[in-house]
């Protein structure tokens, strides 16, 4: 694997690790917007981070199919 592929492999694998947020398992506070406990908001942020990461991946790394694209 070259550097670019390794970078994207790590980036794709990272959310799987960050999903298991054992270090803040029962961290309720702060309550975000007055109704979302922190651990839920963290998972929301993780999902948003995935949107941004996937968008960058599609733009900068997704290999072109020269036959059809």
């Amino acid at each position: 694997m070259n550097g670019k592929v390794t970078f994207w492999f790590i980036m794709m694998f990272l959310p799987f690790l960050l999903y298991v947020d054992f270090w803040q398992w029962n961290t309720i506070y702060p309550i975000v917007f007055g109704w979302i406990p922190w651990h839920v908001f963290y998972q929301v942020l993780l999902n948003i981070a995935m949107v941004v990461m996937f968008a960058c991946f599609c733009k900068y790394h997704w290999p072109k199919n020269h036959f059809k694209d």
Partner: protein
Amino acid sequence: MSGPAMGAMFVILLYLALTLSIGIYSGRQSAKSSEGYFLASRELGPYVMFFTLFATNISAFAYMGAPGGAYHLGVGFFGYLATTTSLAAVFFYVIGYRTWLLGSKYGYMTAPQLIGKIYNSKGVTMVMLLALSVFTIAYMLCQPIGAGYVINAVTGGAVPAYVGVLMVLVFITIYVFWGGLKATAYADLLQGSIMMICVMLALILVTLKLGGPSAAAQSLMTANPELFARGNFSIEQWISFGLVIGLGVPVFPQLFTKYLAAKSSDSLKTTMTLYPLAMILIYIPVLFLGAFGNIVFPGLEGKASDAIIPMLLENYYAPWIGALVLSAVIAAIMSTIASQLITTSTMLLKDLYIPYINKNLSPQREVFVGRVFIFSLALLTCYIALSPPAAILTIVTWAFTGYAVCTPAILAALYWRRSTAAAIICSVLAGEGVLVLFMLGIIPASVLGNWQACVPAITISTLVLIVVSYLTKSGEEERRSIDEKHDFLDTIFKAENA
């Protein structure tokens, strides 16, 4: 039937008629060719692809089981359900893109056909067909039960559950039968939109009555503070569930059909990017509604909490408003069944009927035979949904694990030249075998502690895949076929990353 029940029924019928019209209109040209009917002529653009993949994956569970779970276990369920499903989107590239490339070049139409053809092995096709179709058919047979339940609830019991089951199945069968995958995908465009909009509407309507989300959260924190924490989940469960969903969802056969039907890689890119956003929009409302249900209806036990969203709406609003919002549930059920119907019939036709029963079937007759399968599966679904046997419900409980154990074999087929047909067959059989041992209780679940059966099943299927690949050697034909497919993929991936 009372006036309010008639109002609710009118809203549901209007929704069903709209779905049917869109399905019939969009699928009117589809039946002219086999590829047109079963794969929408491989022309699904980015937004249709996103909505159809999303609507297919979100089933009745999201609107009934998930809020029911949040009612008992709390809003910590979000990571457990939403993030795990978002993680599966990684595989829209990892599996989806290679599937689409091979499908476009070689004309493959199903997952078992694709994996079997990579190894030029009928055995691989047959094992994949068995593994994937058993769980898909069982899953499909149980979905309409939820529709009957919802229609019965919003009409205050005026419409019996079996009538609801029949209504939904008749509407689905007509548009799938008529327009194939294109009708299904365009109906999903409507259904996916309804699923997102209605569930957010439900959250707004209910929290308004509870004094706003902050006031509702405060009440819940005072009465049931544990529902805001994650004490009801263990790390082992969290990881196990991540594995089951992350690896199981991307190999649903109905998703393979969508990968193969993409118009271009843009369809997969858009879907992958927007998917985590859709999970937030669906699961935040349903889970908070489920948890807030404790404020209004405390003390529900077991499955009674699955109806918490209809109960909340019914408590505060007229039945027709409840019906409008609960169209989302019916949309989730219909979109999942429709995709499963078309995919299962395609697999039965392409991987079983044509290779083993009628090799000389003309392309024109393929659509006819496919429709016979659709009609037969719809009849079977109707029969089973009205009185589901316990065995079917057990298979459904294990379906995600059943899919997930196929993932190592599918990844090997797409990425690993050294893998052999024998290894693929042994991997799937070993993984499913472990699952059956747990399912039948021959290996007690207690040996796993807090882990779930997917962990040993996926580990065994992966180990068997590697060991058997090194112990066996591909024959000449098999080797040539593997090299041809991988050489083609290398022209795209290696050239780009050189």
